[in-house]
Each structure stands twice: as structure tokens, then as C-alpha cells.
């Protein structure tokens, strides 16, 4: 079970967490992650995020379902902003629910690593020196590769 939403409008992470948490009597652990646009000391004026409606949600839902299966999650939620996003605003919210905390932590961590390195978004950073397109960092690729190594060891 998982849910994926893309939206141009800002979202309230606290309200999403309350909705995700309410009524879960079998889940002992809920982990959430919020990714925020950093202002990098004022040099970034906005991020612009381009998605391919239909295609992007399907790809993310595939990652979420993989996280649910791999970490025995009871549920996973991904909410992602698209369009223009200002510094200090949340860009992504991920929540996972599981019986125990290790699964909930690893499920959210895994999902974020895959979102950051493989999700079909195209991201433009509007900076003082002009706009530039962003690709995943070397660290994003390394983070995602951790899970392949872990899988082999299990």
C-alpha cells in the first residue's frame, strides 16, 4: 500500500503527518522526511521542478511499492511539489509506517535515496548567476548504491 501525489501548491508537512498517523493501531513506528529548498546563504532565489504527469507518479509509485515490499511497511506516502518553489518551502514529504522502527527508518531512507537519484524530475535552480539545470550529486548516486550492497548481504 502506498500513495503518491504531485502538486504545484505548497503543502503543510504537519497536516500530512497528522493525516498519515491518525488511526494506526498496528504500526509502532512512523518516520517522516521533509526536504526543504535551502537558500544557500541567499544565492538561490527559487527552484523550478518539471515533471511528466502520469509518467513521474508511476515511476515514484514503483519505488514506493518496492520500499513497502522490501521493508514490510504498512504504508508509504510521497507528496512532491512541482513548479516554482521558494527557499524555506518544503519540496518533498515522505512518510513510512511499520511495526518496528528499523523498518520505518530504512524504508524512508531508501525511498528518499531513490527519489533523489532516479525520480523523473528536471530541476532548474534560479541563482544570482542565472538559471542552471541540476543533476543528482555524486553523493546522491553513492547513497542510492548503498542499498544494492545491503541487498546482497541480506
Amino acid at each position, binding site marked *: 500500500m502506498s500513495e503518491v501525489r504531485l502538486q504545484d501548491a505548497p503543502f503543510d508537512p504537519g497536516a500530512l503527518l497528522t493525516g498519515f498517523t491518525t488511526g494506526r493501531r498496528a504500526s509502532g513506528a512512523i518516520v517522516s522526511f521533509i526536504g526543504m529548498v535551502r537558500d544557500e546563504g541567499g544565492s538561490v532565489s527559487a527552484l523550478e521542478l*518539471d515533471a511528466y504527469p502520469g509518467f513521474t507518479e508511476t515511476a515514484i509509485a514503483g519505488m514506493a511499492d518496492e520500499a513497502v515490499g522490501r521493508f514490510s511497511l504498512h504504508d508509504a506516502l510521497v507528496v512532491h511539489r512541482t513548479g516554482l518553489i521558494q527557499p524555506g518551502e518544503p519540496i*518533498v514529504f515522505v512518510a513510512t509506517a511499520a511495526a518496528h522502527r528499523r523498518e520505518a527508518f530504512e524504508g524512508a531512507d531508501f525511498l528518499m535515496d531513490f527519489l533523489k537519484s532516479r525520480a523523473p524530475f*528536471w530541476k532548474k535552480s534560479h541563482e544570482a548567476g542565472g538559471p542552471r539545470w541540476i*543533476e543528482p550529486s555524486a553523493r546522491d548516486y553513492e547513497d542510492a548504491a548503498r542499498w544494492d550492497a545491503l541487498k546482497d548481504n541480506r
Partner: protein
Amino acid sequence: MRVLLFGPLRDIAGWRERSFDPPLLTLSALRARLTSEDEALGEALRAPAVQAAVDKVVVRGDCALAPGAEIAFLPPMSGG
């Protein structure tokens, strides 16, 4: 037939979406058509990291296109 461009391809071409009527019959014919109209776009589309999706499914190599197909060109993804 609709063609969609994403990310930096939009900046290179100066458009996000176009209709082609009459439609092209194959992906290679569509690539040739786009290249003949805009050499810079054609070159960008030939980069190995640029993927093509037909009706939201990534395809490799050439393929036949239905008249109502939606073809998207996807440069390397930025991630979320």
C-alpha cells in the same frame, strides 16, 4: 501525434509540446524531422543519456508510432 520535451531540451528547442499532423510513422522518422527543423535540438536528442518514451513507456532503439501516440524526450533526470 504529440511530442513533449522536458528539462534542458525545452530551453534548447524553445517549445514544450508540439502536435504533428500528419503523424510520423516511426521514432527514427520523428527524430529526423526534428533534426531537419532544428539541428541543435537534433544533436541534443542524439545524446546517449536522452531517453524516449512512447505513451509513457521508455523505449530503446526505433519503434513504430501509432497516429495518436504521445512521444516524450527525457534528458537525464535531476531526481526529486
